[in-house]
């Protein structure tokens, strides 16, 4: 079919000089496939450009150019292609890639998944506009993150310390208490150098249910940070393709607040699994060759383009710290989404269904959890000089608990050697007292560390082989009953 054009002369002021150019409406499309439409005869289009598609009933949908072959282009329609026919659209090129309006006023606002206000407070008057894809941070301009964030949660503070400027995801599963944990972190997170004027939260919801978004909103309100939160909501019934924009918009806001307004920003993105699934849907409708489990081959690069936007840069005192939450399909940590995420992020907090089932909160599975930036942000001058030794020993001893339990499940606990029995007992104490903690309980780092040593002292001293004797002498009390 042929497409006819309707042109209007228009003039606009650009960069201070008057320019006259042609605005062309392209009528109709050539092909519709899932969220993609193909158009032909389009001139002067640039890669990744945003187009406005106007339907006959007057509604305008936005789309993004994802592929160009001469005059034939493929456009991804964010709000979906429902009700679009081959003839009923007028498409206009906007001349720029997807941009996000930014201003200090954005703090406290609620936006939809594509960054448009939905709280009825009107448009954001932009101080500047930024491409939502961002640009990579030059590795030489990065400041290596070293300041720890005290979350008040023993397992996290002691064993997988969160560092300002880090990206530390929560690997969870459906039905586990990852949302509570994220809320508790936001509420208790003390960032040194941050106070109420330069601390903020950017919350990006991708494909989560209304109640979950509401739970977060309410929790932010209760902890008094709501006025410092920017919320971007793409709920589970919102258009899927818009979901691929949500984290990018959120991070653009975060980068603006952190690097231009020097704020300390905590970005919570939930749920990354929905995001990756949206990406898969888009990729398969584009006819791309799939990688593992049908996810596109570029899933790693795509996730990296989000996660790598955390950090601190020279010339700014702000920081972007990311806590992405993802639900592992079937609790499988080798699934491509958690797997690739783990390769990009600086550690992970893994939640465990067995602990959850036993009623422990937070159900942090200690052994697979890790913080890569921890080693330089703890110890003397940051937390306490014994922190690293304690963490090493707790990990090592708890690993032996797991071995002892495996053995006990075969030969029965009674048959275990005395030392294995000690480990079983240590494991029980560790889980009920160290891992388990109230939702409102805020433990100081000293409390957590002392508790760790107290539990370790239930083991014979010869088993504490990861610690220098000098450190043991100070912190390990002689055998005493620990309950």
């Amino acid at each position, binding site marked *: 079919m042929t497409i006819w054009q309707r042109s209007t002369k228009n003039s606009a002021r650009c960069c201070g000089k008057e320019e006259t150019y042609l605005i062309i409406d392209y009528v109709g499309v050539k092909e519709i496939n899932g969220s993609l439409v193909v158009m032909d005869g389009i001139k002067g289009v640039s*890669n990744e450009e945003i187009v406005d598609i106007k339907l006959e009933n007057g509604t305008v949908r936005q789309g993004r150019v994802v592929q160009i072959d001469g005059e034939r282009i493929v456009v991804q329609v964010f709000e979906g292609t429902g009700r679009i026919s081959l003839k009923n659209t007028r498409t206009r090129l906007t001349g720029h890639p997807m941009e996000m309006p930014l201003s200090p006023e954005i703090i406290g606002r609620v936006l939809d998944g594509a960054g448009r206000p939905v709280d009825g407070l009107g448009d954001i008057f932009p101080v500047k506009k930024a491409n939502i894809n961002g*640009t990579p941070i030059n590795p030489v301009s*990065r400041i290596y993150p070293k300041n720890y964030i005290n979350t008040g949660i023993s397992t996290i503070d002691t064993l997988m310390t969160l560092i300002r400027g880090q990206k530390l995801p929560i690997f969870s599963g459906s039905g586990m208490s990852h949302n509570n944990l994220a809320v508790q972190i936001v509420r208790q997170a003390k960032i040194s150098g941050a106070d109420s004027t330069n601390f903020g939260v950017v919350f990006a919801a991708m494909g989560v249910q209304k109640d979950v978004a509401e739970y977060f909103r309410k929790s932010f309100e209760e902890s008094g940070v709501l006025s410092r939160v920017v919320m971007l909501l793409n709920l589970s019934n919102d258009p899927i393709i818009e979901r691929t924009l949500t984290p990018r918009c959120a991070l653009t806001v975060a980068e603006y607040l952190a690097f231009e307004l020097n704020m300390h920003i905590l970005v919570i993105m939930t749920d990354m699994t929905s995001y990756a699934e949206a990406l898969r849907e888009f990729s398969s409708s584009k006819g791309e060759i799939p990688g593992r489990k049908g996810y596109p081959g570029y899933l790693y690069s795509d996730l990296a383009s989000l996660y790598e936007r955390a950090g601190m840069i020279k010339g700014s005192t702000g920081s972007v710290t990311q806590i992405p939450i993802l639900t592992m399909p079937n609790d499988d940590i080798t699934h491509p989404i958690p797997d690739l995420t783990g390769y990009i992020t600086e550690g992970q907090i893994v939640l465990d269904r067995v602990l959850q089932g036993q009623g422990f909160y937070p159900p942090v599975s200690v052994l697979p959890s890790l913080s890569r930036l921890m080693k330089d942000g703890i110890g003397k001058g940051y937390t306490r000089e014994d922190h690293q030794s304690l963490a090493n020993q707790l990990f090592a001893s708890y690993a032996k608990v797991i071995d002892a339990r495996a053995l006990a499940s075969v030969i029965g606990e009674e048959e275990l050697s005395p030392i294995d029995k000690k480990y079983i007992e240590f494991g029980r104490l560790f889980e009920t007292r160290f891992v388990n903690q109230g939702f409102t309980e805020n433990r100081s780092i000293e409390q957590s560390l002392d508790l760790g040593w107290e539990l370790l002292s239930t083991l014979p001293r010869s088993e504490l082989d990861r610690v220098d004797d000098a450190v043991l002498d100070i912190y390990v009390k002689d055998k005493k009953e620990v309950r």
Partner: protein
Amino acid sequence: MNNNVIFGINGPVVTVKNADCFEMLEMVHVGEQNLVGEVIGITDKLTTIQVYEETTGLKPGDPVTGTGAPMNVLLGPGIIDNIFDGIERPLKAIEEQSGAFIGRGASVSSLDSDHLWDVTMKVKVGDRLEGGQIYASIPETQIIEHRVMLHPDLSGKVIEVKPDGQYRVFDTVAVIEDDLGQRHDLQLCQRWPIRTARPVKKRLSPTVPLITGQRVMDTLFPIAKGGTAAIPGGFGTGKTMSQHQLAKWCDADIIIYVGCGERGNEMSQVLTEFSELIDPKSNRPLTDRTVLIANTSNMPVAAREASIYTGVTLAEYYRDMGYHVAMMADSTSRWAEALREISGRLEEMPAEEGFPAYLPSRLAEYYERGGRANVLSGGEGSVTLIGAVSPQGSDFSEPVTQNTKRFTRVFWALDKSLAYARHYPAINWINSYSEYFTDLDPWFIENLGEEFVEYRNRISAILQEESSLMEIVKLIGSDVLPDDQKLVIETARVIRVGFLQQNAFHPEDTYVPLEKQKLMMKTILHLHSKSKEVVSREIPISKIISLGLFDKLNKMKYDIPNNRLDLFDDYLAEIDEKLGALLR
């Protein structure tokens, strides 16, 4: 030539219609901003180009110009102590140009063209120069002398030489006349295509070990200078830490560290840490012998594909000067994924897991560029290639790990359960291997004595035996084992905790000289054989354990400083005395 314009765009892949002037693998400039790209496919209608920068905003009709040369890098003084992106653009200069975020189309010279170098000329008028021979030298850093070599494709008679003095990279310092009578100006730098291996005089067999100071690597699974190694492991198993340890402590002259699709914060850590750490051999900061190539995971994917080749070309250039170069690539899986991504955009037929069918041949080409050789400049040099592999889902049967295994000769398999127990380096002693024993054993025997090899074999045997015993223990517990088998388990525990485990953050333990490694093995084995004697007299093993000797050996790595190896004699004497008392 200038009427070539963009026809189509798909991610980092751009096509040009009806162009006939491009060569395969030619470097091109794309668009108004002169983005760097490379020709990767030519048909009579379409030329396919991969672009090394973000393609957002490119339009059909934008110009594409060829450079007439393949994708190449500039080689000359100023490479060491620098940090480049995947196509050898210095990131510090880019920072000055576009700030903390990397702008596009940055046109900066790879080497600082204003810096004055102290040049000493090594030739005089009338000398005959062959390709690869040295004509000038420059102190590039305090420990690295940069030897300026003739381009391998040139040769001729020197007809003009400038006096010694200060020159810039692009200044002409000599002129030669080749056999055809043509004059060539010689500067302090040369260009070389990244996908072509630089020539050597003669390949040598790898007979000298690369000493890393890491016990499990040096003794159980050694790598030769000029060898190839793979470090596969799931996330969190310590690939990057192992690579960092190697880069810090291995006894190569020059380190090329390629961060290929990895984390930005890791590169900034390397930058800060290496400038603070002092190399024990030269007493200079490690940056004085290090080149960093950082193409982090969010930087353009096509440049990530090129970064490995850029790195190995720099490595070969310094090898040609007669240096031993070690290149760490972290991680080759990201490079393979970049191949897959580009291949997918070209709609090529995928082989395993979406990877292109030419993945094995590309890996082979890359690892073949390692090796020890007599170089054209006269001396001997080597390129050691150590590649991290990040297998999907920690599954070693995936294509990148399997194919890497075929082309590397050392396999340091990192193990998740060891990492969970914080046993670092988490190299699994059962799955790992080294194929260099036969090449390297003569060196070990000559430098450390026959007994080094013997100790190593006995240590391996005990670990193997423990591994099979553990199968039984897992089923019925260790209590039922006879005492001599319990002893094997106890000794293996000392080997694991006291010997294989190494603390990268402990000042004495982060680097351990070979002599101490040998004495540690000796002490452990001495305790083992003495205890065996005791056990054979039917004295219960619990009596030996209660002496505390096993615990003491677990900590000898901390208790015996690297410069007090005489203390080992006390340990041996104590073992004899305490166990002797039991026998009496």
